[in-house]
């Protein structure tokens, strides 16, 4: 926190005293003032980005859960699908994003697909790892109770995966906003990505940086939301901490 303040102060001083043009390096104060003056445009462009982020994330979550359950129950599906998913992570977003926009147009769909593409894999890996983390004693206990495979999954494997799942969720939520902005950068009517592109083309680095601040705040809010959901979904964790 202190380091961030010192950095901002140094930046402010340098921008004011060195005589560098605001169109090259705007001072933090200028970014704040210009961001405030342009707040309506910024906010208006934040909503589509938030929509693409949440939409893509929802798709990614649904798909990761379905795929992880399939792969947990059928090991051959795991062997068949995992290499494909790993390969999907090697695709350079710079090349893929314009193509997806080309195929699916300037609407919401290509953004949702790209967000899903970048957030899906951490979630899937976290879930698979989480299922494997199930305590062997608990699994054997359930077997001794003659619980079915599905019962064991629901009673033990799924709850065991929650801490891993939330770790994956936190990682992918930080990718999600960046993914959405990147998708908009490749082509969109509205959104923070296209706003950044336009501001850059108009030689307004102050507005570019203001939009960056907005996207950072957005990511932090979503991150905080995952922490809140984690608390609510795993009440036993916080109660254990309180005791110790």
């Amino acid at each position, binding site marked *: 926190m202190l380091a961030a303040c010192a950095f901002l102060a140094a930046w402010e001083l340098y921008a004011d005293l060195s005589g560098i043009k605001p169109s090259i390096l705007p001072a933090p104060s200028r970014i704040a003032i210009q961001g405030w003056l342009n707040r309506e445009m910024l906010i208006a462009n934040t909503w589509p980005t938030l929509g693409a982020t949440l939409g893509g994330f929802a798709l990614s979550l649904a798909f990761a859960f379905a795929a992880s359950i399939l792969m947990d129950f059928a090991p051959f599906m795991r062997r068949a699908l995992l290499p494909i998913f790993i390969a999907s992570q090697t695709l350079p977003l710079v090349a893929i994003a314009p193509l997806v926009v080309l195929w699916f147009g300037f609407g919401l769909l290509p953004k949702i697909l790209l967000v899903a593409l970048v957030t899906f894999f951490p979630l899937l890996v976290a879930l698979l790892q989480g299922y494997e983390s199930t305590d062997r004693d608990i699994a054997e206990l*359930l077997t001794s109770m003659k619980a079915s495979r599905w019962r064991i999954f629901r009673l033990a494997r799924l709850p065991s995966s929650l801490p891993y799942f939330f770790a994956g969720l936190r990682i992918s939520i930080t990718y999600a906003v960046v993914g959405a902005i990147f998708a908009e950068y490749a082509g969109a009517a509205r959104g923070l990505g296209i706003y950044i592109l336009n501001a850059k083309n108009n030689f307004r680095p102050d507005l570019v940086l203001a939009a960056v601040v907005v996207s950072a705040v957005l990511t932090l809010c979503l991150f905080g939301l995952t922490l809140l959901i984690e608390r609510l979904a795993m009440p036993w964790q916080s109660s*254990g901490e309180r005791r110790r």
Partner: protein
Amino acid sequence: MSDDILELRNISKSFDGMKVLGDISLSVAKGEFVSIVGPSGSGKSTVLRLLTQALRPDSGTLLFDGAPLDEAPHSFAFMPQRDALMPWRRVIDNAALGLEVQGISRKAARAAVAPLFERFGLAGFENHYPSELSGGMRQRAALLRTVIQTQDMLLLDEPFGALDALTRTQIQEWLQGMWTEHRWTALLITHDVREAVFLSDRIYVLSARPARIIREFHVPLPRPRSIADLGSPAAQAIETEILQTLLHPQET
């Protein structure tokens, strides 16, 4: 004996070519508390895992009520070494787990276990999470989960090994009292000779790997027992003799 509910005949089991169980034959009668003591790593727990059918024997037969185990309708309530409580379930739902798996609704299962909390020293902790309980309470919760299943037989796999000495003695005394009330058929695996003497009607002593039964003891102490009974000459004599058998098996 005709009232044997469980019988193991000439069971052997190897893992990766290493013989763990040599030639195990033992029996448990209905309403009897039987212990198996043996050095650590002797394959004591393997016996239980054969019974829960987590493992299959290489040779020999497992009989339940006179019929092969895979064919006989049977149900065991198993308590693993560690308490295996689910950290995400409240204590009452952990205790009711077996009933829920049997297909009883969560509400009915809770109603069935709730009256027992008092007797198990867990009153007031129904809605706590396991991480909020002490080690002794966790073991009692795991025992409650085991006995509430009202199965044919209890299988206890070194259930108190992780507890401190005082807590262990407390819970042994408590379990002895509970057993005297209910007369569950039980098979206990332990390396604690005193625990075996205190709780059991009969004790099998296993050799080191490959495990065979080297001796069988009857414990003549009357029921109900108290910890003080462990000081009696009869109890002392058995305890010493079991320890002798364990430490110097070739001399017996």
